[in-house]
């Protein structure tokens, strides 16, 4: 059966752009059905969403700020996926990673910036990785299903952080469970201020330096996975653990390291949310970003470029969605969650539905 086939590279654009777009459209169409079911107009919803996400400088800033979170969690899910693992625990890992960032923020409020930033990055990575460690170790050593253990660890993270915020880290004399504000030294500069320094004026928004850090992380992940021998070992492990063993790679060790890296990336969310925007540790600051990360990774085909694009898309959905609820009171954040679920369904499980049809049209997929 050795027909001279098309080189593997030919299907790249189909794989990375066409299929995800079609899957997205399918998901959006179904979401439109739901919107109609609750008595609103899908067309109007779409228009309001687009306007809300990209209609002004401030809106774009918000969109990109949301996207930053999703780039971190999307990369986290993708790195684990390349090792053959499904990390559903990005939510909990982001939460605990944020704890690390927050601690640096609380302690280092007076430190010089060149000290705070690396410390925060290290803390985010270390705490996030630590939360991924136990489920990863259990999978490697005891064969405990990583999907269930990471879901449990999400619940445990929630319990732990609630307890900490209510009892230990809470600002004295305050009712709401959150810490005091970080000292000014531990605030990440916003896009407005950074661009202001080079003479550009933009509207205020939560967009901050963390966006650049996220893009940097994406670039680093791309370089490591496809252009180093460790990335090669990772990909072999994910594709075929037996071949990995044959090649002298130790799959359990690789899987463990991949999960640690995954948790570390998820922790990056804390940099954006806590040091860039909220400047304090608050309850449930990941707000579901860990799960959006799954959708983003699947839609982006686990490739950093696709992930960045998908993250911006979901950022737009998030920002557009919250604007939407002003005009269409029945369409809330929950609707965005529905869209998320549909995207995961189409990009992750039903992707073959359209592949066959496209193949018949002659495309090499």
């Amino acid at each position, binding site marked *: 059966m050795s027909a001279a086939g098309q*080189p593997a590279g030919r299907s790249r654009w189909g794989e990375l752009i066409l299929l995800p777009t079609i899957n997205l459209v399918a998901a959006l169409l179904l979401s439109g059905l739901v919107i109609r079911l609750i008595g609103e107009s899908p067309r109007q919803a779409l228009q309001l969403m687009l306007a809300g996400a990209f209609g002004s400088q401030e809106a774009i800033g918000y969109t990109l700020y949301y996207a930053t979170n999703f780039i971190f969690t999307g990369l986290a899910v993708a790195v684990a996926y390349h090792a053959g693992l499904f990390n559903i625990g990005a939510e909990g890992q982001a939460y605990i990673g944020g704890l690390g960032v927050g601690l640096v923020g609380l302690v280092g409020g007076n430190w010089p910036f060149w000290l705070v930033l690396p410390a925060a990055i290290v803390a985010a990575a270390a705490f996030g990785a630590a939360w991924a460690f136990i489920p990863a170790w259990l999978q490697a050593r005891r064969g405990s299903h990583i999907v269930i253990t990471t879901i449990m660890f999400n619940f445990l993270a929630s319990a732990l952080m609630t307890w900490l915020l209510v009892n230990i880290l809470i600002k004295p004399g305050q009712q709401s469970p959150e810490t005091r504000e970080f000292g000014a030294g531990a605030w990440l500069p916003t896009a407005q201020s950074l661009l202001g320094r080079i003479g550009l004026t933009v509207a205020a928004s939560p967009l901050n330096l963390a966006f650049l850090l996220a893009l940097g992380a994406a670039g680093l992940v791309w370089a490591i996975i496809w252009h*180093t*021998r460790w990335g090669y070992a990772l990909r*072999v492990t994910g594709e*075929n653990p*037996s*071949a990995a*063993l*044959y090649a002298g790679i130790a799959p359990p060790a690789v899987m463990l390291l991949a999960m640690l890296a995954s948790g570390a990336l998820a922790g990056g969310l804390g940099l954006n949310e806590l040091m860039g925007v909220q400047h304090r540790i608050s309850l449930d600051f990941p707000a579901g970003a860990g799960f959006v990360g799954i959708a983003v990774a699947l839609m982006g085909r686990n490739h950093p470029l696709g992930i960045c694009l998908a993250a911006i898309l979901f950022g737009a959905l998030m920002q557009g969605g919250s604007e939407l609820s002003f005009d269409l009171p029945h369409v809330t954040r929950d609707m965005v969650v529905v869209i998320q679920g549909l995207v995961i369904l189409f990009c992750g499980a039903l992707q073959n539905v359209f592949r066959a049809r496209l193949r018949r049209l002659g495309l090499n997929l």
Partner: protein
Amino acid sequence: MEPTETPVPPALELRGLDKRFGSVHANRAISFSAARGSIHGLIGENGAGKSTLMNIVYGFYTADTGEIWVQGRKREIRRPAEAIAAGIGMVHQHFMLVQNFSVLENIILGAEGGARLQGGVARARAELAELARTYGLEAPLDEPVERLPVGLQQRVEILKALYRGAEILILDEPTAVLTPQEADQLFRMLRRLREEGKTVLLVTHKLREILAVTDRVTVLRQGAVVAEVRTADTSAAELAEKMVGRAVLLQVEKTPARPGPPLLEVRDLEVRDAQGTPRLRGINFQLHAGEILGVAGVSGNGQSELLEALAGLCVPSRGAILLAGRELRPAGRGAESRRALGLAHVPEDRLRMGVVSGFSAEDNAILGYHNAAAYQRGPWLSRGAVRQECERKMAAWDVRPPQPAMRIGRFSGGNQQKLVLAREVDCRPKVLIIGQPTRGVDIGAIEFIHRRLVALRDEGRALLIVSVELEEVLGLADRILVMAGGEIAGILGRAEATEEKIGLLMAGITGAAGSRPEGSPP
């Protein structure tokens, strides 16, 4: 005067069966007929279309055009259920048995005789007792199938078909997992079935089976029927030529070996599986430079464990392996360190272990060698260097098409194997251990690979070749090591080795029951 009888229609007749899979024309207008009460052989090399054809007859696929006539009546067979209803039963190469069910449960699956199991089971026992009497096919009904030896499992498969009322029995590569003696037992069973009026279709690529037991044989080549003859009127050479389309060298030509010093030494090696059962016991042998040691034996007798232990993929519970005098440590990164020391390994199961099917050819060409300095530029993997290397390997081993970026799954089995060999041989290993060198490889590539292996031997390397194909072992090896039941049954020089002797050694230790059950299909 003899009363004139209406001629008995053939048990199975295929008329113009045609099947395409996309651009691959798997079966081209195939027509043949098998007479009732005969054993009919279907032979062709890997990829000739035999399996596709039988899958059509059994209802797994539907032919694009053509007709199937059973016992003189045209039948529509679109699903296995319809094939079974037409009296066709099939014994697949990889058994279709539920491992943790009992023999009885496996046999009644699909013919339970009622929504509640109780009634059907009683009736089944009675009927199976009858079948055992008629055909001599006995099996322990309440034993879980996973505990039965392979030969007995195959018998359960035959019973399954007979229980469903099969008049036509198709056997797909049935002796792949049997010792020569077990194969003979199978043939005796098939002759008995023929006596009772059943029709047997034997699908195989092994010439000796065709010659041993069939009445007529149909030869397939590249999807079409190229010959149909009475077995008695033909010979192995003639059939082989028809299979390939040209005269075939059945034996690889080679000069006698000139063995040098021992490069690999195995002392008292023992390997246990996860449950602690020894799969390999008391293994002692030496492998010299400039010789090919062939390891013969039905699969499942410890050969896989031997390869894995030598390659560093599993840790032996006892014993030592010495490479050029140095003892190899069974470390976690065993495979990698051994490559560095000069021991290369071509695995038995190429798709499971030897290549990563989702990767391109060039990414597969560095599998196991991805840490080599030649490919690194600082912390980065140099894709340019990787590609160049792959191109070089492809040229040296005539891998077609020479496209490093193409997904490895799109190469034929033979080209994949050539790339794997190129990869393992390129680092000039002192010792090369190979499992099933030509599994899933077409005849042209087989010749090429065999010639190259002998050339490697002549360069002074030491080769250990494990193969379930006895002809391959006899053709390549200078010395033959026979494995049975996890132990070495004997080591013979090529001159003194005959099929009979080897067959006896293969069966010797485990006795009449046959070989150990396999852990997984080959």
